[in-house]
């Protein structure tokens, strides 16, 4: 193991390199570009045995990935924002054809107005596409999850694509020390993909066959079953990964949840800031905590219920708007998960950081104070708080 200075994008590219991917088909888009740029350099320098397919769009990139994955290859791609939106059609095909593709997504706002900075609007727009969705907090997690993602995706019980989401610029471009595993350690952890079907003229198969009213529904039900296998597989993979790296992962991460009355629940890089604020508040005797969701799809319903059962007030952070809905997507999921729980906190939604609007420790402290107030009074003053917007 060596600690190397890397941006989040570089960490993902390095992880893909060590994962010995057979095919990369990708199209550059800020703030993801560095991932595919670094990878193309590995190819040009002969550091990897990967086929690199240059394509004319993200729609083609994912199409090429799907075709490659169906031959039995290990496939990686990366995109962001408008690129992910252009992939939208193919994302459903990737999951429907059960292609264990791993994709790095540098989360970025969607046009209009045009904006290159980080928020979760892109991936939240594809949250129902049947992809496994993991959100990382920093470059280290981006590296660790990319390697683990291949194992989860390629597990026989799963066979589904995974998106590893990293906040645009905040993670993708911020240089941090990343503890990198040795190549042979990764190679041992992540052995050659064992595909269910391959492209073999001796054993021909038809993929993408027509399914009407008679069978389509059953194949969608199978995808639901496959997603239900994700969590146990993830836990098994995370345990093994801990043995080789010393870093433990799961479906979610908590801070201060043993006695927290007021809690912030969020995805991605925001968790780091929230934890720091919580640490400060806890030093002053405030019972606050942080829940960070690593696995957003499939949503870890039971764990969310369990971790929040003694919480009095909960602020759910959404870095994207679900236009016309009561809450942002994450808050809706949390409310749904708790709907049948016997004990549940008072919940309010915090919409923040759109278009890369900075979220400061003081902003999060304000939310914690609001949650503490709600915990004390039992009254939600505002169901949806637009944090840091000029109104």
């Amino acid at each position, binding site marked *: 193991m060596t600690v190397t200075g890397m941006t989040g994008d570089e960490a993902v590219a390095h992880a893909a390199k060590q994962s010995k991917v057979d095919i990369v088909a990708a199209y550059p888009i800020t703030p993801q570009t560095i991932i595919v740029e670094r990878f193309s350099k590995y190819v040009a320098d002969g550091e990897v045995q990967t086929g690199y397919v240059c394509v004319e769009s993200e729609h083609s990139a994912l199409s090429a990935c799907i075709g490659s994955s169906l031959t039995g290859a290990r496939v990686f791609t990366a995109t962001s924002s408008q690129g992910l939106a252009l992939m939208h059609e193919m994302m459903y095909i990737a999951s429907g054809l059960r292609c264990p593709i791993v994709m790095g997504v540098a989360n970025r706002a969607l046009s209009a107005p045009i904006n290159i900075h980080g928020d979760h609007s892109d991936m939240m727009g594809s949250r129902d596409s049947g992809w496994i969705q993991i959100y990382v907090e920093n470059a280290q997690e981006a590296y660790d999850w990319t390697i683990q993602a291949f194992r989860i995706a390629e597990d026989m019980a799963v066979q589904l694509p995974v998106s590893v989401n990293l906040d645009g610029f905040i993670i993708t471009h911020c240089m941090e020390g990343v503890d990198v595993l040795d190549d042979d350690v990764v190679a041992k952890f992540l052995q050659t993909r064992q595909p269910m079907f391959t492209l073999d003229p001796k*054993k021909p198969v038809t993929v993408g*066959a027509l399914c009407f009213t008679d069978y389509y529904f059953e194949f969608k039900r199978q995808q639901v079953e496959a997603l239900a296998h994700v969590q146990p597989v993830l836990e098994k993979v995370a345990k093994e990964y801990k043995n080789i790296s010393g870093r433990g992962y799961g479906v979610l991460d908590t801070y201060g949840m043993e006695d927290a009355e007021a809690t912030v629940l969020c995805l991605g890089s925001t968790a780091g800031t929230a934890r720091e604020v919580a640490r400060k508040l806890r030093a002053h005797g405030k019972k606050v905590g942080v829940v960070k969701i690593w696995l957003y799809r499939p949503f870890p319903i039971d764990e969310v219920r369990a971790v929040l059962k003694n919480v009095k007030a909960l602020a759910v952070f959404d870095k994207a708007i679900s236009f016309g809905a009561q809450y942002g997507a994450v808050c809706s999921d949390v409310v749904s998960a708790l709907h049948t729980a016997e004990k549940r906190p008072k919940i309010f939604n915090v919409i923040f950081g759109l278009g890369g609007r900075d979220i400061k420790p003081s902003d999060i402290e304000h939310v914690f104070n609001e949650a503490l107030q709600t915990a004390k009074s039992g009254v939600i003053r505002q169901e949806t708080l637009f944090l840091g917007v000029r109104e």
Partner: protein
Amino acid sequence: MAATVTEPGSSLKYKTGDWRAFRPVVDKEKCVNCLLCWIYCPDSAITREEKWVAINYDYCKGCGVCAHECPKQAIRMEEEQK
């Protein structure tokens, strides 16, 4: 998994007649064996037999073109009972 078909040439086993909502039935009393239905059938699901035409229900999708074209109204479209 994923609707993957592991056997080649399996489309021969796919009987598209399942799509049919109405079934054409030939009234042999009225039929004069003019073969207009045989000509018009867009799915070639009407075959020439010795005396009368026959309908291949494995592939007839029940479009009703035969019944429409029959000059003797010898083909009746009956609702499928499923």
